[in-house]
């Protein structure tokens, strides 16, 4: 007599309906009443088919329940408990995996001294201070990075060049010369290239803004909120706050550069954690179209590290702001809380990740000296080197990295329903906290699950109230 039990999934309610988020397929199904009843009856129990039918049948016709059961088994929401659990697949992407994005660390120097910076604080992993890497990327290295991207992109039609730092604009001369070069090379290879950069905006000039607008370069501004929050950590070397310096420059950027959405990127710390106030300041008072938030990457115990209570407060605030997002989206209006839109996009596609991000796969970082690293945060670290712009991606090192960091090796994640989206979390965060990229970020599991649940409920609400809105994630 084979017994039936529940498969792996997360249930959530939205718009008066019950939904299942199936793991690991990442499919979202809405249940009707018989399906809801079957799932509820099996919750915490293992029943024979007959016992299950007997328990549910007074409420629904038996044929309906049989049909429901067959459907639930097909999507693996219900399974025979005697059948072995399918092993977690260890699929290493075929190499050469095409490269789509090269992040160029055009400098490791910065005109600010943000207290939490991972590049210069005690948590740094790249030897930026002792001259092991040049302070500025040369034009030659930048050109070679572009050549490397074109070579390694294979048949990919649209490639991305990101500029990062340090403070990116401290090497504006090289940036401004490599953009036209990349356009030429892309055309020669039959590709299209897109650009973006991240900056603290304190060095932004009218000339630069004109250049960004002319070349359709997406700009992300690192900014933490209103003056008192921004100036808490984001200060110049002499301790002076940077808010007054960047504000007029950002306003001019927003006024003159409208071909691409200009985003703000906020770092949350124990001291700066008022998500809702920050969001409204950045969108309504300054005019950003998109705002993304991320907790600071730091080893535990630092003064600015978010601890348990800080994470709780952050989730509460995220939920409030996500509620605003939902109301706007349900009414068909734009809302710029990009953490929600990014997660909704992944939920809508049904992304089920073997790796937390594209680092070392479709994306690499290039250090000022031309070393290829996992991403911009690792570029220049000898321990995470994946080749060089001259020699291209070291495919053996890449394969070894992919084998070591696969979700199948993160045993802690194997019972977590949020793993299709999280997959263990940021490599750099893990390296800072646990000393290795292969370790899942266990310090924010609860937060990730809370946040994923919030986004799933928003997704369910939108699927019922304004399904048209979700179509935007299909391109």
């Amino acid at each position, binding site marked *: 007599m084979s017994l039936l039990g529940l498969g792996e999934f997360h249930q959530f309610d939205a718009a008066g309906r019950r939904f299942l988020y199936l793991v690991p397929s990442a499919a979202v199904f809405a249940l009707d009443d018989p399906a809801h009843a079957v799932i509820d009856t099996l919750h915490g129990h293992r029943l024979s088919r007959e016992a299950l039918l007997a328990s549910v049948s007074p409420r629904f016709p038996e044929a309906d329940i049989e049909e429901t059961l067959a459907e639930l088994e097909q999507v693996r929401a219900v399974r025979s408990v005697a059948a072995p659990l399918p092993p977690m697949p260890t699929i290493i992407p075929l190499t050469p995996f095409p490269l789509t994005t090269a992040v160029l660390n055009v400098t490791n120097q910065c005109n600010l001294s943000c207290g939490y910076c991972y590049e210069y604080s005690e948590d740094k992993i790249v030897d930026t201070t002792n001259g092991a890497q040049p302070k500025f990327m040369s034009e030659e290295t930048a050109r070679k990075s572009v050549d490397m991207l074109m070579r390694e992109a294979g048949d990919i039609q649209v490639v991305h060049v990101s500029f990062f730092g340090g403070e990116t604009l401290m090497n504006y001369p090289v940036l401004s010369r490599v953009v036209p070069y990349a356009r030429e090379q892309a055309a020669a290879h039959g590709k299209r290239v897109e650009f973006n950069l991240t900056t603290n905006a304190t060095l932004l000039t009218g000339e630069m803004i004109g250049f960004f607008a002319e070349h359709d370069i997406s700009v992300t501004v690192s900014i933490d909120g209103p003056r008192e929050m921004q100036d808490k950590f984001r200060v110049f070397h002499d301790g002076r706050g940077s808010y007054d310096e960047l504000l007029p420059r950002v306003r001019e950027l927003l006024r003159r550069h409208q071909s691409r959405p200009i985003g703000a990127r906020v770092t949350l710390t124990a001291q700066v954690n008022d998500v809702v106030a920050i969001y409204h300041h950045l969108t309504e008072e300054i005019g950003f179209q998109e705002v993304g938030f991320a907790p600071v990457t730091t080893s535990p115990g630092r003064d600015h590290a978010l601890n348990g209570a800080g994470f709780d407060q952050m989730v509460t605030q995220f939920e409030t702001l996500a509620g605003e997002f939902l109301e706007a989206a349900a009414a068909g209006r734009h809302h710029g809380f990009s953490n929600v839109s990014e997660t909704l996009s992944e939920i809508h596609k049904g992304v089920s990740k073997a790796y937390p991000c594209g680092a070392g796969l479709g994306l690499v970082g290039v250090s000022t000296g031309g070393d290829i690293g996992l991403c911009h945060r690792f570029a220049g670290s000898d321990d995470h080197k994946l080749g060089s712009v001259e020699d291209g991606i070291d495919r053996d090192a890449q394969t070894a990295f992919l084998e070591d960091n696969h979700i199948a090796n993160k045993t802690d994640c194997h019972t977590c329903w949020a793993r299709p989206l999280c997959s263990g979390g940021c490599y750099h965060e893990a390296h800072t906290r646990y000393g290795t990229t292969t370790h899942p970020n266990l310090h924010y599991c609860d937060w990730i699950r809370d946040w994923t649940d919030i986004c799933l409920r928003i*997704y369910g609400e939108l699927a019922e109230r304004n399904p048209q809105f979700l179509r935007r994630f299909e391109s």
Partner: protein
Amino acid sequence: MRHLKAINRKAVRIVDTVTDRPTVAAAGGDVVALQEGPGPPQQPEGPHIPLGCSLVFSPGWEADRNGGTAGLCQPVERDLFDCHLGCFWPAHVPDQLNHSPDWTSTCAAAQKDWRKIDLIFP
């Protein structure tokens, strides 16, 4: 599907897949194939390893117990009754001598009644 509504794109793909490829499990839900189909589409197909009651190095795969090739081992799902009684290595069938002498009693004709053979728990 009538009772589950596919909401996201992955769900739509799953429905397409299971609707295109009706499984035995969908019909009755009591049979699970021991050998799945080919692996994930982006991976090269691995070697076909028949799943039988003995190792591929053991007698039975290349030569039968008489040294010929007439009675070679089969994958177990095709070989239930060939392993039963006749085989020198009765690994994957219940022990009909001591514990389960009548495990096939409900199965008068294998082609017709094989679903009636249930699991045996020694």
